[in-house]
């Protein structure tokens, strides 16, 4: 996983409550053998006017002009604004894979569904919980200002607006550490590589047939 370093990111708004993971990535794409490449199918049902199937060339599908993320001004956004209970529904990690693949590193919402929240951290995506009132202001600012950006600094747990306003957020110390170091579970376990090797050396003595 990449280290989560400070960045200045374009903000895109998704002004709906209860965005579920089915909406984030529909079920037909779970047949995929990949963890990457879900980006073109992020919000597939909203984003395109035609039904999609895995393996299609999605660039040829007609885009829904009414879907907010299809507006050219939000192309390349890295920060997504959402409403309450973001990521509810099925546990599919594919939802986070799709967001990440589409370039999002941060999702800001008043509340998140639990499993989605956890899945974010496993994949280097930072979910930020802010007050609904603060989000109202951000939604308004994004609508008014073309190219609205926020500066994200996980170390100091702050988001800085173009006007210089500093919004602080909470994050569990351990999760923060993992994101900052770019460590996933695997990375953490590999910090104990010496213990694993020592175990193997011991075990090889007791049960050599396990290491044939």
């Amino acid at each position, binding site marked *: *996983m990449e280290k989560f370093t400070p960045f200045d990111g374009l903000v895109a708004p998704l002004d709906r409550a209860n965005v579920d993971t089915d909406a984030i990535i529909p079920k037909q794409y779970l*047949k*995929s*053998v*990949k*963890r*990457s490449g879900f980006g073109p199918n992020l919000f597939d049902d909203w984003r395109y006017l035609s039904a999609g199937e*895995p*393996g299609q060339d999605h660039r040829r599908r007609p885009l829904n002009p009414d879907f907010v993320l299809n507006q050219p001004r939000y192309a390349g956004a890295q920060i997504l604004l959402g409403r309450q209970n973001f990521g509810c529904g099925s546990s599919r*990690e594919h939802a986070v894979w799709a967001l990440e693949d589409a370039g999002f590193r941060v999702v800001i919402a008043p509340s998140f569904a639990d499993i989605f929240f956890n899945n974010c951290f*496993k994949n280097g995506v930072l979910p930020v919980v802010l007050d609904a009132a603060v989000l109202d202001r951000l939604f308004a600012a994004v609508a008014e200002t073309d190219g609205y950006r926020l500066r994200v600094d996980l170390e100091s747990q702050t988001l800085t607006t173009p006007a210089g306003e500093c919004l602080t957020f909470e994050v569990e110390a351990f999760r923060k550490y993992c994101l900052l170091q770019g460590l*996933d*579970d*695997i990375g953490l*376990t*590999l910090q*104990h*590589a010496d*213990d*694993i090797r020592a*175990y*193997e050396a011991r*075990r090889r003595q*007791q*049960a*050599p*047939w*396990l*290491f*044939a």
Partner: protein
Amino acid sequence: MTGRTLYDKLWDMHLVREEADGTALLYIDRHLVHEVTSPQAFEGLRLAARQPWRTASVLAVPDHNVPTTPRGQGVADIADPVSRIQVETLDRNCADFGINEFAMNDVRQGIVHVIGPEQGATLPGMTVVCGDSHTSTHGAFGALAFGIGTSEVEHVLATQCLIQKKSRNMQVRVEGELRPGVTAKDVVLAIIGEIGTAGGTGYAIEFAGSAIAALSMEGRMTVCNMAIEAGARAGMVAVDQTTLDYVAGRPFAPPPDQWPQAVAAWRELVSDADAEFDRVVTVQADAISPQVTWGTSPEMVVAVDARVPDPEGEIDPVKQSGMRKALAYMALEPGMPVTDIRVDKVFIGSCTNSRIEDLRAAAAVAAGRRVAPTIKLALVVPGSGLVKQQAEAEGLDAIFIAAGFEWREPGCSMCLAMNADRLEPGERCASTSNRNFEGRQGAGGRTHLVSPAMAAAAAVSGHFADVRELAAVAPAQPLGEPS
């Protein structure tokens, strides 16, 4: 100090480190891999530029998507392109990472939970994982075996370990002798009927007692296979002479010079006499009859000579509404005799019941009989290429074919209908598999779980039939002779 359970011993033996809060890093000895849950894990390794920690611990096989019809051209014979890509992806991942794979046309190919034990790749005292919930099967060898998710598959590939918390200890004792016609499948269905599908939640279950000790390894695997259906992550049986006899001489078993040392270590893999379990359930073996599930959860099960239960008799409102929904889905009337339920298809196979002993039991019933004309399809799908070979050497294929069964190539097949074998909406199946969930064998399909002998009995009768009564009636034709 009180003694330790088998689970305690297996746990302690594999502890790499443990945090103060009980979170443990557990070492994994054997990692079994199939095509459905592994692609993203391999992809993850690639993206992070990681290598598998110990490739020799991994054994891979395609099973869920493979066709059971002739497949001489290998992967090209998979009609569904999405399925084909999953199998090809496994082939390529194994080639790229240097992992031992039994590819589709290898005679050793088969259902992942059949081939592990068959090859001796599952050994007593091992931790065995696979991205598949029925990994509990391997616990029959006195191993700690459980299913994991795709992220964990990647974690094990990369680190040879899993981050785990310990479960509680439960013992299910089956005491006494099983009556004729009653098999391991009936035992485990009866246990689930008794403790419920959440009865084992939070526990690792050790199956014990004289009736379990009397089971063959095939039978023990059937029981442990369905531990997950009782909510337990792992099921296991202590090591005894039956275990050792089964393992001896298998391709991945310890070589002769290490065998005595291995046997000495494996003999320890029993719960100490003074070990304490958090929960103990005792079942009397002679009270168990052949079982048939009537609903959409494995706990919805009755004896073949019983009637479909009436929700009116259930006082728990949640259960009662569950029963109503299940009866509606299954299109059954409360109070009807189970033997009045007619079936459309019969499936003998799956990681629960596709081993040689299962096929022998089904063939013994099919011998000299004919599949009823009302049955649309009766499938026998051996668990592996080697099981198929063995069955053919014993002439079982001829018995099945003469009786009107189809004799297929090995794979998961109609257990989950990911390949072309499936139920059509509304069709009813007598199945030796492990899950009777709505739509499990095909959208709208109705599944009744039974033992292989009971499945064969349903096939030749056209409806559920008590295999004990069938056995009393001489077959119309002598054994193995085609009509």
